């Protein structure tokens, strides 16, 4: 195995996982905040809907996304009109698919953190002149660090490992949509067990370092 087939997919995976995680934190935060604080009758419906993507097998989910994001699909055709490019079989498509698929893993820990935050700290912040937005960023967010850590870890790790959706929507194109999970899968499929072991070990080491760093930073931060 040469360096390119080894590190190319790995680098792509790390990029995908990082971007997906960032996007997810931005998207999941308002959803989780709303869910944690609303008294709306629709809350359980929204909660359920957010959690629903993961009950579909990844490949099947990927299949539906393929149709939806493809040039004939509702979103895909609109995107083609807008930019001239297709969403499917592109890195952007992968990001969208990964985000949709990992959304519950980002939302759930945040909801738990936000719900246990309580009203008291926020009330204090408001009376000190912080707007709702300001109070969120200056009080709620730092006090929910543990929830964010969990959300980041789950989103990041899950995106690294996921390949059903990615394979379907991305199409396993080397250098573009062939991420490491697909590469390992390919090696296993084609009986290259040795290569598969190597790639798996590489992935595990990288993931271990990344996750360890996150947990460690968090620990330092909390006991500061």
């Amino acid at each position: 195995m040469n360096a390119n087939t080894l590190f190319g997919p790995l680098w792509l995976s790390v990029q995908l996982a990082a971007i997906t995680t960032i996007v997810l934190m931005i998207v999941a935060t308002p959803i989780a905040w709303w869910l944690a604080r609303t008294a709306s009758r629709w809350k359980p419906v929204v909660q359920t809907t957010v959690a629903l993507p993961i009950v579909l097998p990844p490949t099947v989910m990927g299949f539906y996304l393929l149709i939806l994001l493809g040039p004939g699909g509702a979103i895909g055709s609109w995107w083609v009109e807008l930019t001239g490019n297709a969403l499917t079989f592109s890195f952007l498509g992968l990001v969208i698919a990964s985000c949709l698929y990992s959304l519950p893993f980002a939302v759930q820990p945040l909801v738990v953190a936000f719900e246990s935050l309580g009203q008291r700290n926020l009330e204090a912040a408001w009376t000190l002149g912080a707007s709702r937005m300001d109070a969120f960023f200056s009080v709620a967010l730092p006090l929910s660090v543990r929830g964010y850590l969990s959300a980041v870890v789950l989103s990041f790790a899950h995106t690294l490992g996921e390949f059903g959706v990615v394979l379907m929507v991305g199409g396993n194109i080397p250098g573009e949509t062939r991420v490491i999970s697909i590469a390992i899968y390919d090696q296993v499929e084609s009986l290259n067990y040795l290569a598969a072991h190597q790639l798996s070990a590489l992935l595990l080491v990288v993931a271990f370092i990344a996750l360890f760093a996150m947990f460690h930073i968090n620990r330092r931060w909390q006991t500061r």
Partner: protein
Amino acid sequence: TESNAEQVTVAVASNFARPAHEIAERFEEASGHSVRVTTASTGKLYAQIVNGAPFDVLLAADEERPRLLEESGLGIKGTRFTYAIGALTLWSRDDELAGKDCMEQLTKLGTKRLAIANPWTAPYGVAAKQFLVGAGLWSIVKLRLVFGENISQTLHFVASGNASLGLIARSQALDERLPASTCEWPVPASMHEPLEQQAILLQRALPNESATGFVDFLRGPVARQIISDRGYTVPQ
């Protein structure tokens, strides 16, 4: 993006990945074009092509999907051809079966498992079922079957010792990376419908010389040699 005249993207059924890579390499040497090989199950590749995947050529594991593509116009009419014919091998690495007649063991499975590819999804599964039914063994082994998602998963089941016997592809049985078998029996081609693997040139490859070049190369002697070396029959 428009397909690059210099580059051809070939979608290959997973079971044919290894010969496809070798052929692509030889083609690149010979033509100067570059080839991107992308692999997945034929079912996935078909769904992707229908939804606009940027593939120029499809090397399927069956003849059904290429035919559907040809009929729907996504595949270019008249470019469909059988590039390889697969064969089944009954294979085991179970030490208890060493030196015994493999075929006979099918009737004496006991608590042992027989792995075949999924007859609802994988061409090799279809063939395996045809063989077992034809040999009158289906009702005997039925309760001892485990189904692999595809032919390579079927091999994992046998190679890891979880299933005692498996109906795998001949091409796999020849793979030098496998542990030695304890018994092996090539299933005669007459005992199932032919496992024709077909290729088709896809619509988006139309202006792409390298794509037609690759298909021509696939029909050529170098590729045929590789294919037959890997355990497939090459049709005339």
